[in-house]
């Protein structure tokens, strides 16, 4: 700084306050300006609009399963038979790799809703369609590395660490769910 400006005087505190305020406003202004740019990278309104999907369950008969797409991912919805529900309840939970009771994974026992992505390395397991390999436990079988899920979608055999994920969903009526 040139010699002209460096001389102490009583007004210095006021001057410093001015500089401090200016600097603070500059920083705040820059931050407030930058935030919208970062926020523009968040999902846009049309993407958010597709963040929930409603499914009509009425056409799905007992023993039948459908796959819907939600947020770009497959969602398995199986209308379970009494035997399948029974088999799921009888399993010893403590011995499971990822211990969860069947009740923790469903809202209504006959409807099982899960994200159809194997928790090992992301393949889509088989078992939705008639005639597909359902594995030893009557649920789903992942052909990539042999993970096997039971009638509650829990991992029983193979390399996957966790049960098939249950997404957030709610029953809008007895036959209507909204996923997401």
């Amino acid at each position: 700084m040139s010699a002209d400006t460096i001389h102490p005087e009583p007004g210095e505190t006021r001057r410093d306050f001015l500089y401090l305020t200016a600097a603070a406003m500059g920083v705040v202004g820059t931050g407030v300006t930058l935030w919208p740019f970062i926020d523009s990278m968040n999902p846009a309104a049309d993407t958010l609009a597709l963040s929930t999907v409603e499914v009509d369950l009425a056409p799905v008969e007992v023993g039948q399963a459908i796959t819907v797409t939600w947020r770009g991912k497959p969602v398995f919805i199986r209308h379970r038979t009494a035997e399948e529900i029974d088999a799921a309840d009888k399993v010893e939970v403590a011995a499971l790799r990822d211990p969860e009771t069947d009740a923790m994974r469903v809202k209504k026992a006959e409807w099982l809703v899960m994200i159809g992505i194997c928790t090992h390395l992301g393949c889509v397991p088989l078992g939705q369609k008639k005639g597909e390999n359902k594995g030893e436990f009557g649920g789903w079988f992942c052909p990539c590395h042999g993970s096997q899920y039971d009638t509650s979608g829990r991992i029983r055999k193979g390399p996957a660490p966790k049960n098939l994920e249950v997404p957030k969903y709610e029953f809008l009526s007895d036959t209507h769910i909204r996923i997401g």
Partner: protein
Amino acid sequence: MKRVSGLLLATCLAFSGPVFAADVSGKASAAGEQSIAADAAPAGEAPAAGGEESTLQAGASESAAEGDVPAAVESPAASHEAGGHVPAMKWSFDGPFGTYDRASLQRGFQVYTQVCSACHSMNRLSYRNLTALGYSEAEVKAIAASHNVQDGPNDEGEMFDRPGLPSDHFVSPFPNVKAAAAANNGAAPPDLSLMAKARHGGASYIYGILTGYAEPPAGQTLLPGQHWNAVMPGNVIAMPQPIQDGQVAYEDGSPQTVDQYAKDVAAFLTWAAEPHMEDRKRTGLKALIFLLVFSGIMYGVKKKIWRDIHH
């Protein structure tokens, strides 16, 4: 230097002055005739008056393709300002503090749905956008579901129809532009999503068009499919008067007149073109106030720092 420029100017004027003077005054009346001729076939919403307009357009686009910069003679530009007079209107959304009148927007949407959507698409809008008008989620769902949307292919490989969802875009009355044109005398009714920004005068222009229908003045004959409109540039429009008094039943007791319908539709279309206008003005005000204060402070800082420098 003055001598050089003076002599040059004098020489040029001596040669050309009288000649130009004669030519320019002669041209004035010719220019007048020219613009009237151009008025009859504007490159706008008038239908093809036989093959004449398409030739005019082809001529214009051809010359543009050859790289000639458009000149007065070739383009129908003379009609651009002639004939149309946008009425001076006051809108609730005018000015830096203007906002939309949601009741008016809802009425405008109602008029669009019941009258305009028969011919005009608004395919940049989605049904979920209507929550901004004050409709609830359930109402928006119902509005969307009242339209059929084509979806597919299904597992059989076929396209199918299903009720609309809020995430769907507004359903178009025609599958594509050519179908729209074919059903409307060769002139496709334009999409209205951006109409308030795509025309000089915006909402006032739209209001003017809808209320500007009248009989043509004496001596001007219209071809079949043409209508006379005070606001349309060139005064000739392909769209017949779209709405009459009492055509749409308003539930809030607003007057069911063409004047009111036009105001509501114009407001609705302005919102459709600029749904974020209120956000924009609010953010702008905040930014401006911040900058005002910050400028004041920076001015103080500058003054303080420079105080002891002679400059």
